């Protein structure tokens, strides 16, 4: 792990007076560490980008430099967008993800509010239990899930994913929201209660607006998870017009022992765009939301 051990952790024994110098060194160290990790993190995506711009002949040609594209072409992107089902998979992924996010948020905001603010029998156990659901791995659940989904008549139907994905997202979202709600001063709701507001009004009028950063953080998490989910879609979706992106790429662009690397990379990079945009625009909220939720958790 050459990259990992190179941690520039900053000078320990420096005297008081040299505070400015200490800062400067810390900053240089910081940029150095950043550079090392950005390289480590960006090498595969960079290679993906280069590969996606190559023709299959150039990819197969061993005499060339694998890191650089010599005759760039947008053909892979063009073919993905104009032929085949990539756009259908993309649309399906968007639909499923948006629905999953909405459902996850409704379930977890309601539950988190109750668990954070209203004590009732079993609430403490439930709060712990929710987190423990992650202990049951997907690879164990999917066999019984076949029967459940089968009995609902939803096998090979992308809407089944909307039903299943919340099991992956809701526990963590609930946890973020509990933390966030707990950080809201209690005086607020006492005042509201004395004014005669019901709990539901309180949730709607006070908690949701105040907790918006937390909700955004949870939403982004849910978005990332359901966008990237792989095991359930590959197990439950068979028809190409029902497939989500992750499965679609694997099952349409790989034929037995033939990989269309250029298109796979192009497809993967385009699949990374929506989450990237979400993070780019909402990152500050995300961090702000996690900040409160995380520390109280």
């Amino acid at each position: 792990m050459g990259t990992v051990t190179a941690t520039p952790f900053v000078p320990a024994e420096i005297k008081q007076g040299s505070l400015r110098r200490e800062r400067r060194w810390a900053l240089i160290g910081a940029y150095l560490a950043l550079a090392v990790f950005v390289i480590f993190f960006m090498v595969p995506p960079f290679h993906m980008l280069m590969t996606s711009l190559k023709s299959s002949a150039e990819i197969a040609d061993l005499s060339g430099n694998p890191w650089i594209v010599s005759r760039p072409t947008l053909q892979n992107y063009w073919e993905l967008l104009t032929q085949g089902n990539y756009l259908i998979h993309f649309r399906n992924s968007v639909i499923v993800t948006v629905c999953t996010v909405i459902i996850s948020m409704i379930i977890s905001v309601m539950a988190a509010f109750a668990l954070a603010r209203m004590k009732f029998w079993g609430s403490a156990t439930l709060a712990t239990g929710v987190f423990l659901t992650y202990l049951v791995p997907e690879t164990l659940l999917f066999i019984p899930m076949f029967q459940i989904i089968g009995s609902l008549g939803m096998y090979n139907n992308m809407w089944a994913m909307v039903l299943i994905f919340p099991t992956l997202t809701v526990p963590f979202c609930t946890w973020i929201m509990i933390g966030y709600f707990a950080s809201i001063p209690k005086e607020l709701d006492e005042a509201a209660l004395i004014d005669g507001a019901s709990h539901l009004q309180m949730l709607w009028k006070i908690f949701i607006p105040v907790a918006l950063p937390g909700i955004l953080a949870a939403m982004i998490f849910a978005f990332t998870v359901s966008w990237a989910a792989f095991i359930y879609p590959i197990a439950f979706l068979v028809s190409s017009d029902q497939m989500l992106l992750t499965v679609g790429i694997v099952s349409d662009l790989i034929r037995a022992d033939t990989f269309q690397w250029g298109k796979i990379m192009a497809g993967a990079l385009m699949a990374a765009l929506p989450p990237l945009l979400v993070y780019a625009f909402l990152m500050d909220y995300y961090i702000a939301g996690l900040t409160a939720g995380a520390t109280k958790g």
Partner: protein
Amino acid sequence: MEGKGIPRGVPRRTLLRASAAGAAAAALPLVNVHGQTSSGKLALGLWDHWVPAGNDGMRKLVTEWGQKNRVEIQLDFITSVGNKNLLTIAAESQARQGHDMLSFPTWEVHAQAEKLEPLDDIMGRLSQKYGALNPIVEYLGKVEGKWRAVPAISGSQNKPALGRIDLLKQHAGVDIQEMFPANANAGGKAADWNWDTFLRAAEACQKAGVPFGLPAGQFTDATDWIGSLFRSFGAELVNAKGDITAKSDGVRRVLEYSQKLFAFLPNDVFSWDDASNNRALISGKSALIFNPPSAWAVAKRDAPAVSEHLWTFPAPAGAQGRFTPYLPYFWGVWSFSRNKGAAKALVEFLSERDQAAAMVAASNGYDIPPFTSMTDFDTWEKEGPPTGVVYNYPVKPHHQAQQFIACYPAPPEIAVQMYNQGIQAKMIARVVQNKEPIDRTIAWAERELEGFKRG
């Protein structure tokens, strides 16, 4: 990459709902198995062919049949990548719904036998018309005396040697085109094409920097050629009765041979998968692999300079004979299918000689029909360049070879574990990578096999 799946205009959910509601109605027996007047809906999950044209050819056959018989067809191509087809089979078997007819790879017929419709009638008629079948499909498709699936044409493949004419001649002095020309006569040196010759060629090619690309991991390409290697040395790990017979001279000899052979292979072959060997060949880094013609076809597209020098020829022979690795697929009909009659009729239709010829042609010769009488289609003679590259891909009489599946003839419920957990490749890896003494490796294998025998 063309559109596929449900025909447009028929929303999937409507189909499902209709079939769920109409369960009682669908219980109507579909008489007329011969299928000229059956109707209704039929959902098919067929193997997603590596050649896009393979899918097109199949779709054409199925659609025409559907129109002629007034059956509404829903056709999905299910890839074997990531074992998606196995997941699909497990899913439909558990959910008891899904497709009416599915493609079942190698071992799945036995695994799902109780949920598959017996197809003895079809097999009876087909055998009468087309004669003998190879014993491997009988072993895999016939459970307790009943055919539970029909050996498929689409997807069934051999994995003979696929080598570089130029490199083998230049470095190893082996003229493969002379040994196995594109006609029904073996060349003079064909009888010498055995594992010893193979070893010498492997050494020469390794010295020349183009080592043989023989995978030895847990993927089928590895298991299949290693299975044939074991068989031709008479190394049987479990016999037909299910007794462990690993402690034998044959096993010792094959492991000794592997020690020598693997010294001439790249050192990471133990992790190679089904695509690594293709890439080694296509990139020009390797002189020989065991593979269906897919590697050649991709080379034709991406590296024509390589593909022009490729030639398919049988696997080397050992003391016990010549065994060509063979990986058959099957077409089976679920017992919970709502349209068994139509499904069976379609299976029979697809197994006929005309359809077989069409599928072989559409797949550039990749598909291998189960009947020996169907190994004479002209597709195999014409494909190229070089012309005749796949002539010797189906097993021809003059090869004096048998098609073989690794772990045969162990009882299938044991064999499936041996096969999928790659026990033979692991034995080689222990001897070669870990430098473990052969007797200790055999003892290890015996313990593993003991575990597989558990009911």
